[in-house]
């Protein structure tokens, strides 16, 4: 594996390998000395053309924990805002000796273009591209699910037979896409719940079921309910009428939480709109894995950088 662009590219063995390595990294993070020397002398460039403080901090923590040198470029105040092309920016980073480029961009496909364009020889890690993919989010989500469903020490296991509901703005969600591909690979069955306006028009090849209300999806007795952040500007574009109507049909309310089986978990990639897609008390309940996801995020990103390094040597 030279790059991580899409969870679609991962074989089952590779995916499980990444989850197992994530478990190892969780162990490292629990030790007195929380660092590995793997990336000593290597440079990880975090290139964030789109603001995302949490993802950027998570990648920085992961790179530092592997002893890498870290440089961060954000769009604000850089040559990017002066109209420099992505190609020129990438070639500049290449000339400065970046070995890993962690790339976040508001346009779909940018990570793939950078990886295949010949602009750089660095490893490219997709940290979210438009409405396409966010593969490290899916890996940390899958690891969180596996830990909760099979225990933190589970190794070599997938998510076979797990029943997972993803609810919200699927059409505009890179988190949903990366999760769908990865969860399919790991053997889970996935149901997408959203108003028709927020589902892509043709998902016949996605290998998922759909439900047009969250209640309908919960009838399937899921092990996991993953709620997605809803952008409030979708209302003015006519995707749904109002916040209250969204909550009524697709919100993870306390009543709906009470319908879930005891072992079921509720996830959210953050940042949350409390009271809209997820009720505050559900987000703070024992079912919620929100902070666990953030914690696992650093380990999952360490696992990705670590695994890409192995490919090189």
């Amino acid at each position: 594996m030279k790059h991580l662009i899409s969870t679609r590219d991962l074989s089952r063995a590779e995916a499980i390998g990444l989850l197992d390595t994530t478990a190892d990294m969780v162990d490292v993070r629990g030790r007195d000395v929380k660092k590995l020397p793997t990336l000593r002398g290597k440079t990880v460039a975090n290139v964030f053309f789109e603001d995302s403080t949490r993802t950027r901090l998570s990648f920085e923590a992961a790179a530092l924990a592997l002893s890498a040198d870290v440089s961060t470029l954000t769009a604000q105040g850089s040559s990017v805002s002066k109209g420099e092309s992505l190609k020129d920016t990438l070639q500049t980073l290449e000339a400065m000796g970046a070995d890993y480029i962690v790339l976040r961009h508001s346009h779909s496909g940018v990570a793939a273009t950078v990886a295949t364009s010949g602009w750089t020889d660095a490893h490219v890690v997709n940290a979210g591209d438009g409405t396409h993919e966010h593969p490290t989010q899916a890996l940390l989500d899958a690891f969180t699910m596996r830990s909760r469903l099979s225990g933190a020490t589970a190794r070599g296991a997938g998510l076979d037979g797990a029943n997972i509901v993803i609810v919200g703005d699927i059409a505009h969600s890179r988190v949903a896409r990366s999760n769908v591909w990865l969860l399919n690979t790991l053997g889970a069955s996935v149901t997408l719940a959203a108003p028709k306006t927020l589902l892509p028009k043709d998902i016949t090849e996605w290998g998922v079921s759909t439900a047009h209300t969250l209640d309908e999806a919960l009838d399937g007795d899921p092990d996991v309910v993953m709620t997605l952040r809803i952008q409030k500007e979708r209302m003015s574009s006519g995707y749904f009428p109002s916040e209250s109507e969204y909550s009524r049909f697709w919100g993870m309310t306390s009543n709906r939480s009470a319908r879930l089986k005891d072992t079921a978990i509720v996830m959210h990639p953050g940042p949350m709109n409390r009271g809209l897609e997820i009720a505050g008390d559900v987000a703070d309940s024992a079912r919620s894995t929100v902070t666990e996801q953030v914690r696992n995020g650093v380990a999952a990103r360490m696992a990705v950088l670590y695994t890409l390094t192995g490919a090189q040597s």
Partner: protein
Amino acid sequence: MTSLVVRGASILGGDAADIHVVDGVIVGVGAISAKADRTIDAAGLIALPGLVDLHTHLREPGGEVSETILSGSRAAAAGGFTAVHAMANTSPVADTATLVERVFDQGVTAGFVEVRPIGAVTRNLDGEQLADIGAMAHSRARVTIFSDDGKCVGDSLLMRRALEYVSTFGGVIAQHAQDPRLTLGAQMNEGSVSAELGLQGWPAVAEDAIIARDVLLAESVGARLHVCHVSTAGAVEVVRWAKRRGIDVTAEVTPHHLLLSDENVLGYSPLFKVNPPLRTFEDVEALRAGVADGTIDIIATDHAPHSASAKDCTWADAAFGMVGLESALSVVHATLVNPGHVTWDGVARLLSTTPARIGRVEGYEQPLTPGSVANITLVDPSFLGEWGVDRLVGRSHNTPFGGLELPGRVMSTIFRGTETVIDGRIVDELRTA
């Protein structure tokens, strides 16, 4: 008096004959014994009338970094064309008599093909006020086609007025059918591929609905309508229905929509970013069938050159469009001739006679017959080769066909008796025969 004889070409794919040209006019077709200043051995080649493209972007004025009227004319000649229509979306927009005359004159100066300017429908393509349609029609450029191509005339009332007004001057509106609201931010065809790639979808209905509206408007005001670059199965159905109803509508399809599909976009290569977008295999099949049954009247390239920097970038930043003049005949050969949808006779109709009729271009009424202007294209149908940028002669290299095996090669193009392509190579300087 200058003369030229083409020896032994298969006329429109039929029997072999010689073609005798004197002073730019065909004077005889058959067994020619007369001596000539120049002889072209055309044994094994197919003779077609010079090709006519109803839809190109020559970028001059304003976009000379990607194409000029001269470089685009050379690309056209290399592709076997002797006449091209230049779309109005230049900078400044071709919306006045002065501007279309300038384009026309530059075409005459370049001399490789007849350059016919298309006038804008609305001033500055703003979709608000009609451009100087009458003045352009009566200018030296004698504009007959009006189009805001690149943009749709979205306003129904303005479209109605435009259809009515151009019919006063014997003109036609060539509509770029794209509902602006339904395609806000659209990046590629809406379907399973856009769903996977997370690119904003461009629904087929945005094209179909405008065409349905426009054929009904054309019927109600008794005007002539031409539909640019039909790309969906639904649009073919609408045009088929309109023709059955007797509505005066013609339609074009591009070579790239006959060959490529949205699956080409899977790697996000901007070479496949085009408006209208590449659709599904089902659409490709419907387009081919539409050509075969006559629903679609012509092939037009929508040649859209873009500089390297407009394509060597991310998908979202890339410009829409692909070059197509040099490759058009080969793609038609691969997608329509080889599968048996049309014969070479049909190719002459789709790429020369009918587009000339729609654009009121003179000299193409009786192809390859004595008395006609000597616009002749000779094709080697046995050629098969890998397409690449080495086959391009225009200023830009944004071809989507690189690496594909494509049949056929233009060996000779004769424009009003003058050879613009000799032995498969564009001539550097024109010498009037």
